[in-house]
């Protein structure tokens, strides 16, 4: 039975300081060891603003204190810990404080979400990676001036620019299908293109 660990995004935990999330998934930040690697989940969403906060930062310093500088460490978080595109809210306001702690480690990788697209970035010795979303994509921020807008939904290629949708455990032939359908993708894409698709759907449930 695989153990699944989660990290909240702002839509999961931003409105109620993570209360409902904790009820279903547990703590919003935590750490664990697995096969010689130390894993850390950081929460930069439940304070509503894009920040980690002093309390969690102190916890992080304490959590890492027992490890040598060469320890293999993987950090999961939702928003990028560096200034990727602040005017799209693609940043963490106290990300520099977090990176000051993390940058002391030579073999540390950060995996994050939020931006609904691929990205690779390096700050000092730390590598940051983001993967594609399952539901809709945002464009390359370096090529867009002004506000953030989702990549237009293409009905003929509904999964274009999206991430993996099936996962095989231990190489077995039975894939675990992701519970998202084309209807989910289309509705979400409509919402982010301003047609209020999701809101209409909620007001007028399908018969």
């Amino acid at each position, binding site marked *: 039975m695989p153990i699944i660990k989660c990290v909240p995004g702002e*839509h999961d935990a931003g409105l109620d300081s993570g209360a409902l999330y904790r009820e279903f998934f547990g703590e919003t930040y935590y750490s664990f060891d697995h096969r010689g690697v130390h894993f850390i989940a950081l929460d930069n969403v439940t304070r509503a603003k894009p920040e980690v906060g002093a309390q969690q930062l102190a916890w992080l310093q304490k959590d890492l204190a027992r490890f040598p500088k060469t320890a293999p460490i993987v950090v999961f978080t939702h928003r990028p810990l560096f200034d990727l595109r602040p005017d799209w809210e693609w940043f963490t306001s106290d990300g520099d404080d977090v990176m000051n702690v993390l940058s002391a480690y030579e073999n540390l990788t950060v995996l994050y979400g939020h931006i609904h697209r691929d990205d690779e970035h390096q700050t000092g010795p730390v590598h940051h990676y983001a993967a594609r979303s399952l539901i809709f994509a945002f464009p390359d921020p370096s090529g867009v001036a002004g506000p953030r807008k989702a990549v237009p939904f293409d009905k003929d290629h509904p999964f274009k620019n999206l991430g993996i949708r099936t996962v095989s455990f231990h190489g077995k032939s039975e894939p675990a299908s992701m519970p998202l359908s084309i209807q989910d993708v289309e509705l979400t894409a409509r919402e982010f293109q*301003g047609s209020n698709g999701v809101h209409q759907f909620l007001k007028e449930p399908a018969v």
Partner: protein
Amino acid sequence: MYRVKQFAPAIIFALGLSTSLLFTGTTRVRAEDVPVIDITAKRFAFSPEKITLKKGQTVKLRLHSQDVTHGFFLRPLKLDEEIPAGQTVEVSVTPQASGTFTTICDHFCGANHGNMNMTIVVE
């Protein structure tokens, strides 16, 4: 304590002066001369959607929230305000660079939060 009492009138005068004047770099502007711009935040938009400021001119932004708590974030103008639910906050700003900037709500306010923004043009 004696010295404090002795200089109290001067201190009070200085405090009064500092509240009636806004210091903007090397120039001083009377508070009553500072233009005020009202901006309303309501899920999931700011109103007006666009304002125009002048480079080097101080303005006061009066930010109102009509529903939940919102943010008002624009790093190039050093704006990072929290607008509590149903309340009004004021912030003075003196733009130092021209350009067109996107201001965002950076306090998560609901499903369409990511599209809550407005434009500030500095001429």
